[in-house]
């Protein structure tokens, strides 16, 4: 473990390599580009490969191919690039291929894309939303392990602030990647009568008939997603929820500012609580219900038109009113630098919904 002052993109790249990632493919796009630059520099030093793909479509394809061999692999982009990858991300779930996918997002409008409905079909994948580079570094190896454990893509949700802020982080020592799982391809089972298959349409060769049995396969995938959802402990951070009349929720980078605003209000004697989901999927439903147990309102701040707000409503099942206090806040660049992210602004926003 080494403590270093690193810009977020570099910290994320160092953490990926430290966690055993040995293949990365990406396409330049702000604010993800620097991660690609750092991986291009770092991976060859550890015998890995970084490819500048011809588009985001090919980046996720190359990462899929590398991951299929049991190599710890990752790809990423920003929201628009992730949009291009969606068919593959959905299909990676039914192909049971582990992969780390990084969204260095612009603002927070990609919550829906990340947690559901980015792609077609019935699929979910674990989504982690660190609040800063330090948390992203701490979550990186667990993210790869989740991907391997459940044989699924895992999405790590960062943003412009995380990518371009320098922070003191604890970079873990580099570990070797684990050996490939017995599902991984390397050619060697050819001719055995049981040559391996890795496919989004089915996972075994049929000898009784020809063609894939999609009904059977998708049922099994659905069961797997269910088991995964139940098998992952949701993660969150909370502050002052024991006596909160109003619980304020936020996620990702804005969470830091909202937490500071809540602290300030608490110092003034207001009974305000704070809850920040770290796993956006599985969403910490039980924690949200518990935190809002005695509250009269849950206020949600996000830099979008209200997306996590839906999940909060779903978690509370109508027991406590939910109010969206966020909104799209961008500077002229559109990259997600939010004029609203000032503690004073957020204090005011929260005060507007506090009881008199």
């Amino acid at each position: 473990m080494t403590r270093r002052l690193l810009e977020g993109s570099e910290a994320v790249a160092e953490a990926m390599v430290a966690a055993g990632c040995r293949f990365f493919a990406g396409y330049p796009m702000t604010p993800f580009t620097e991660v690609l630059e750092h991986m291009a520099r770092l991976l060859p030093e550890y015998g890995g490969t970084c490819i500048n793909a011809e588009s985001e479509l090919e980046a996720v394809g190359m990462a899929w191919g590398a991951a299929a061999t049991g190599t710890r692999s990752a790809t990423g982009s920003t929201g628009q690039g992730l949009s291009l990858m969606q068919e593959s991300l959905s299909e990676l779930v039914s192909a049971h291929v582990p992969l780390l996918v990084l969204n260095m997002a612009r603002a927070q409008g990609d919550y829906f894309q990340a947690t559901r409905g980015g792609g077609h079909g019935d699929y979910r994948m674990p989504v982690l939303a660190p609040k800063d580079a330090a948390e992203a570094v701490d979550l990186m190896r667990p993210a790869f392990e989740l991907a391997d454990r459940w044989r699924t893509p895992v999405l790590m949700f960062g943003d412009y602030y995380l990518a371009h802020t320098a922070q003191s982080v604890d970079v873990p020592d580099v570990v070797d990647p684990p050996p490939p799982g017995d599902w991984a391809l390397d050619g060697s089972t050819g001719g055995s009568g049981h040559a391996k298959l890795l496919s989004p349409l089915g996972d075994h060769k049929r000898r009784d008939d020809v063609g894939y049995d999609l009904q059977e396969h998708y049922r099994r995938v659905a069961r797997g997603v269910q088991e995964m959802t139940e098998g992952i402990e949701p993660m969150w951070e909370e502050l002052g929820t024991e006596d909160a009349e109003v619980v304020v929720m936020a996620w990702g980078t804005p969470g830091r500012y909202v937490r500071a605003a809540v602290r300030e209000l608490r110092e003034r004697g207001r009974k305000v609580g704070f809850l920040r989901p770290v796993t956006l999927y599985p969403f910490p439903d039980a924690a949200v219900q518990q935190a809002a147990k005695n509250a009269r309102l849950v206020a949600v701040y996000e830099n979008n038109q209200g997306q996590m707000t839906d999940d909060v409503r779903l978690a509370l099942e109508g027991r406590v009113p939910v109010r969206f206090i966020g909104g799209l806040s961008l500077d002229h660049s559109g990259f997600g630098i939010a004029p609203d992210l000032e503690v004073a602004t957020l204090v005011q926003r929260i005060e507007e919904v506090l009881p008199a």
Partner: protein
Amino acid sequence: MMIEREGLQVIDTATPPDVPARLVDDFTPELIDVGTHGLCPGCGEPIAVRALVEAIAELGLTQKAIAVFGIGCYTAFSNNLDVEVLQALHGRAPSLATGVKRARPGTFVVTVQGDGDMVNEGLQEVLHTAARGEAVTCVMLNNGVFGETGGHLTATTVLGQRTKNTLEGRNAHDHGYPILLADVIATLEGASFVARCAVNDAGNVARTKRHLTRAFEVQMAGGFSFVEILTMCPTGWFIDTLDAPDYLSGNLAAVHAPGVVKDAARG
């Protein structure tokens, strides 16, 4: 040995010969698990797949091979071969093949894609994979139609060819011109071996196998190779199975000309 059927004296072909004889060709090659498939009568794709797996076995690559399948009628073979198979999405096999080969350079990686998959959906992928000189082999099964969806225009459909969405025949004014992909790929420095062949008669099947063998050897020597195999699709061409071989020669092969387009190692 002889029996009578429909007024003819024919040989009893229900059982192996009862005089000393050598088996020279079994029903299915060793690497195809089950010979039954739901592809149309007279389809050229199983013929091409057979040649492909025979070439893999003959070169001793069976335990190194990973076949990356695209999406089309031929996908029926993806869970029916006794080599390791990675199933890709429509058009995406070359990028997956790239990832596999870069992560495991000792493997033998071949994509199996149709013309719709490779030249329409995935044109960018195959061009860039060739340009980068990835040590993989991309194989196109070209029948000039999107077969699996019923027989529609692709980028390789030839002028005059009738398809479900060019019922009067493809014309340049409304539908543009076909892309002769092998010729385009041959212009890329990163492509080492590029060939076209067909499976419409036994001689051509033998040539197909030779080109595949050469392509595989080029890959094992570190180069990118590409083989386009013209296949019959009587269903997509609206013709009888018996007429498909001649239709292939007269129409598809007249435009997508068979032969070795480029062999960088041999000049």
